[in-house]
């Protein structure tokens, strides 16, 4: 079971084979997607017709629109980036205030509130989407009836997408940041205070620098989850489609390898983000 106990050879072999099979299962879809981004054929399907970059840079003689010429697709990437940036900003700010609220304050109903903060994590995304859609519409109707205002951002569209995603991503940010704040040794703050720092300086020079890894880490996770989100977004989206919704639409209608090209782009971007984070981790450790 564990290395310190004797294990028969067949069990060890089986373990290795299982892990290899698992890795194959894990990477087969990604490798396939990546490979067919470079296939010289109008559909992402075998057989292999030769290498081409048409699906990235386009080829007018064959009527192929490459990723870099596909305004619609590029626009949806920008839309996703726009949404993810707002979602990250809101989630991290509110996640941080929540962490301080739960770890540093004592008030009546606190345990109830901390339980409530976990609830968004067990509500299916589709339902978060429709409930916010319905509620926002009702509020908008109400404001229209009462004051004659037309509140555009409460109708399906990007602001609502941001709100929908934020509704559960704040919970994730709160959990991560609280977990680190809980481990913080408060005598460090007392020591700084004792050395003449003002309350604000203590926060800026001691507490926030300590929280930094959790802030960066949860920002990366939230950004990524926002960028990948589909279920909630689908219910709230208006005229501008984020990338996942755009890709979904094209996949239903029969995809061209441009989608594979976008996927390759996403893989590279994710890998770059991951490397950047790990580099940051290493730097702090050394």
């Amino acid at each position, binding site marked *: 079971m564990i290395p310190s106990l004797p294990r028969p050879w067949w069990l060890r072999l089986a373990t290795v084979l299982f892990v290899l099979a698992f890795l194959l299962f894990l990477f087969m879809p990604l490798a396939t997607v990546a490979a067919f981004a470079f296939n010289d054929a109008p559909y992402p399907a075998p057989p292999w017709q030769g290498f081409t970059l048409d699906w990235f840079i386009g080829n007018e003689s064959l009527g192929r629109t490459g990723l870099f010429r596909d305004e619609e697709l590029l626009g949806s990437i920008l839309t996703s980036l726009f949404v993810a940036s707002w979602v990250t900003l809101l989630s991290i700010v509110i996640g941080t205030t929540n962490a301080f609220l739960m770890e540093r304050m004592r008030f009546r109903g606190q345990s109830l509130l901390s339980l409530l903060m976990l609830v968004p994590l067990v*509500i299916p995304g589709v339902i978060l989407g429709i409930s916010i859609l319905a509620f926002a519409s009702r509020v908008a109707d109400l404001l229209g009836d009462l004051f004659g205002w037309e509140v555009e951002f409460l109708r399906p569209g990007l602001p609502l997408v941001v709100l929908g995603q934020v509704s559960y991503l704040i919970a994730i940010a709160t*959990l991560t940041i609280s977990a680190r704040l809980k481990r913080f040794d408060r005598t460090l703050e007392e020591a700084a205070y004792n050395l003449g720092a003002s309350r604000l300086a203590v926060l800026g020079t001691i507490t926030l620098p300590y929280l930094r890894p959790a802030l960066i880490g949860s920002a990366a996770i939230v950004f990524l989850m926002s960028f990948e989100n589909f279920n909630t977004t689908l219910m709230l989206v208006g005229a501008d489609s984020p990338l996942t919704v755009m890709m979904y639409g094209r996949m239903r209608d029969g995809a061209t390898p441009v989608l594979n090209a976008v996927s390759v782009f996403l893989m590279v971007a994710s890998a770059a983000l991951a490397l950047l984070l790990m580099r940051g981790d290493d730097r702090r450790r050394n």
Partner: protein
Amino acid sequence: MTEARTRSSHYLLLWLLLAPALLWLFGLIVLPHLDLALLSFRERTGPGEYVFGLEQYRTFFAEPLYWDVFVRTAVVSLVATALTLLLAFPIAWTIAKLTRGRLSALLFAVCLIPFWVSETVRTLGWMILLRETGVLPGLLVTLGLTDAPVEMLYHDATILVGLVYTSLLFMVVPLYGSLESLDDSLIEAAYDLGGNGWTVLRTVVIPHALPGITAGCIVVFMLTLGNYLTASLLGGKNSLWFTEQIYTQFITRFNWEQGAAFGFLLLALSSVMVWIGLRLSGQRFADVMSRT
């Protein structure tokens, strides 16, 4: 600084910190769901006229299609959760216990990599692999196992593969966390006292890993139940997943009352399953969620 001033500044700070939390929880979670509940109990009697009633829920139980899809979604989600656990446990065990240092870290990182890429991309991969003109049917013909390419998409098994694949991360991470914290010497002691592989697994490992197992199962079940993308793409137009019914009512037919009722039924199902999961494993919600 007088006592009164410190107290009032304390209250100011408390409210400053409470405001965003309350705005979030009530504005985006509690009130919308209450509103959804109200919506689901509304009957349309004429243009712009509504009364309170159970019409939407009656429709759900009266129409076999809805009921069937609901049960099917629940059963497939349960099976997917069980399969994910069976597949993820040996992997988490290998990473946590059988490998050390760099290899362990590398294996863990490798298992996480696919989930840095969007679910859309992963589903696209499965479509290219499994469709009739895709990679695997072609491979089967080449190997002489089938005469003509078979359509591997749009089966229940396909949905299962896609769901398990998409859920793996959410199972491996909590499992790894709970197995990692298990002290090797406990296993050694159990062996030393005459245990064998199976009894040690049952009496030492699983009880210790139970919070992680519960956390993984709850999250995976919730995610598969609420999945839209994988089910609708790998299951095709007739996949009959319950979230698709919700989408159809809400977005296509614009029948929000019916959609709200469906949404509430799904939420109820997911809550009941979470509750049963916690009950069976004897865990507390807050402890479990802090592990995910």
